[in-house]
């Protein structure tokens, strides 16, 4: 019988090392995250609260907010369904080409969003592969809502799946096997066993996915066509307002995006604090 290991601190570095690293990261965070965030709100309120709220009465700003919500409302559920299906297949079954599928899911992380947008232009643009057929049948994809949704789905593809796969793999198939042996149907096992097991990670993934869907700029800019009040999402509208010397309105819309991000962050922290154990199983990435 060996002796029980002595309890000791997980790190043995000297105190000054810990203090310095903490300070460095705090200063870094403050400089690159907190300061810009404050700047956004300072600029937005520069001409007073009235001007701030007046910015949201502009029909083009409202159209941009509406479009952004609409795009997120389509893209997030799509990626929710896809994410669950993919992670379920990957974690619970063995099949050929599994690692290829995992690599493919990660692809949007490594492809530049601008390239992603251009790919859709090459596919659906008037000079593209399917362009002439689409035009002949009066189907609008690029420079309209479908194109923007496609680009957003592409960019936010990995968020839900990436969150679920490690957790599901970790949990294994024992619970499902038990359910099946007790006579549950495959669907019932999925609904009453698999899904509840991953619920918090799922919510977490959806939050991240939503934040990115609303904030995406590059890919959407390529396929948007920049039609005022029509195909400009909030991030694009911020750029337009800024370019029109309308700085208060630009930062007002930007502050709305920042608020969304902060809310997401708060919800995420809450989930981590409340259900940390359930989420902790996910691999670091």
């Amino acid at each position, binding site marked *: 019988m060996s002796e029980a290991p002595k309890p000791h601190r997980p790190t043995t570095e000297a105190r000054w090392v810990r203090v310095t690293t903490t300070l460095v990261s705090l200063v870094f965070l403050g400089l690159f995250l907190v300061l810009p965030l404050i700047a956004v709100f300072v600029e937005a309120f520069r001409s007073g609260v009235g001007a701030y709220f007046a910015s949201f009465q502009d029909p083009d700003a*409202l159209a941009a*907010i*509406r479009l952004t*919500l*609409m795009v*997120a*409302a389509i893209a*997030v*559920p799509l990626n*929710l369904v896809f994410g669950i299906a993919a992670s379920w297949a990957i974690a619970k079954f063995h099949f050929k080409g599994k690692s290829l599928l995992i690599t493919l899911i990660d692809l949007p992380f490594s492809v530049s969003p601008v390239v992603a947008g251009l790919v859709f*232009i090459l596919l*659906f*643009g*008037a*000079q*593209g592969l399917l*362009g002439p057929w689409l*035009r002949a049948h009066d189907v*609008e994809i*690029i*420079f309209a809502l479908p194109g923007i949704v496609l680009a957003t789905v592409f960019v936010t593809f990995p968020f839900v799946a990436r969150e679920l796969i490690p957790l599901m793999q970790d949990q294994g198939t024992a619970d499902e096997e038990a359910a099946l042996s007790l006579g549950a149907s495959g669907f019932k096992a999925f609904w009453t066993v698999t*899904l*509840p097991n991953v*619920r*918090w990670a*799922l*919510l977490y993934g*959806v939050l991240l996915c939503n934040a990115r869907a609303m904030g995406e700029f590059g890919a959407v800019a390529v396929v948007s*066509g*920049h*039609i*005022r*009040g*029509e195909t400009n999402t909030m991030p694009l509208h911020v750029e*337009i307002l*800024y*370019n*029109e*010397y309308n700085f208060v309105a630009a930062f007002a819309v930007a502050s709305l995006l920042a608020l969304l991000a902060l809310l997401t962050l708060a919800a995420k922290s809450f989930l981590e604090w409340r259900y940390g154990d359930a989420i902790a199983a996910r691999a670091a990435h």
Partner: protein
Amino acid sequence: MPAAIKAIGLGVASLAFMIAGTMLGPRPAVAQTSFLNVSYDPTRELYRAINQKFEEETRPQGKKINIRMSHGGSGSQARAVIDGLDADVVTLALAADIDEIARRTNRIPSDWQKRLPNNSAPYTSTIVFLVRKGNPKGIRDWDDLIKPGIQVITPNPKTSGGARWNYLAAYAYGVERRGGDQQAQAFVAQIFKNAPVLDTGARGSTNTFARRGIGDVLLAWENEAFLALDELGADKFEIVVPSISILAEPPVTLVDGNVDRKGTRAIAQAYLEFLYSPTAQAVIAKHYYRPMKPDAAAPQDVARFPDIKLVTIDQFFGGWDEAQRKHFADGGIFDAILKSNR
């Protein structure tokens, strides 16, 4: 049902509710004719004013017209129309970009520029310098741009129409004052050596210079320079007029393939002709574009335009077709300049 799934369901439901809420706002009861004007970067304010006048003029005829706008760098806008952006009219920074659409899509006839007066340019402009108040670096003419330590801000001629006019104005100066093509090329190369950033569009460069405070001199559309004084403070900048510049002709045309498909030819044609009307010409001068018919504009607006010796693209460069091929096409003089500066 597990709480998390309920929460997700609730989130989706409330999102759907929000969207429904924003969509149920007041909707116009009258059927609308709508068309899309795809334009270049600095014309936002101009077309907002012109569109309003056009809507006022057509309202008595019982038509409700919804003019949709899209703005961006002239080259990238042309690219978008080629890729299927459903423009009814294009109002771009230079003829070469519309030529490009004509060549690649067959949606615009190749002789488009003869369809409207003045080479299809209802307004013209030129290239001037914007410097910081008091002109601390003493910039008077093109020669001053190649001095060591001067930072020149211009957009990228590959994507921006204004930048191509900048380039050609500098080149014309080089040919006139330095003796020939070779000297002009070396001269322009030196200017671009002094350019720390190349934005994609004219407005981007204006913001780089004016808001971010980068650079000593901005090469800008005359209208853009005046607008910057208006919007960002006449106490911060001043305009310097060089001894030679170029007559910039931003042309307009119908996209025949699109208007015929959508049945908007009549209204789009009326809109383009409206640009030549006294009403629109006055708006044009007010927004610092040089009107084709100065008589129609307010005299005090016209008086703001300085007298500059202007060379034209047709006489000096043999037209856009040739200028584009010689200077801006892949492997052209501009590419050679970037390469030699590297």
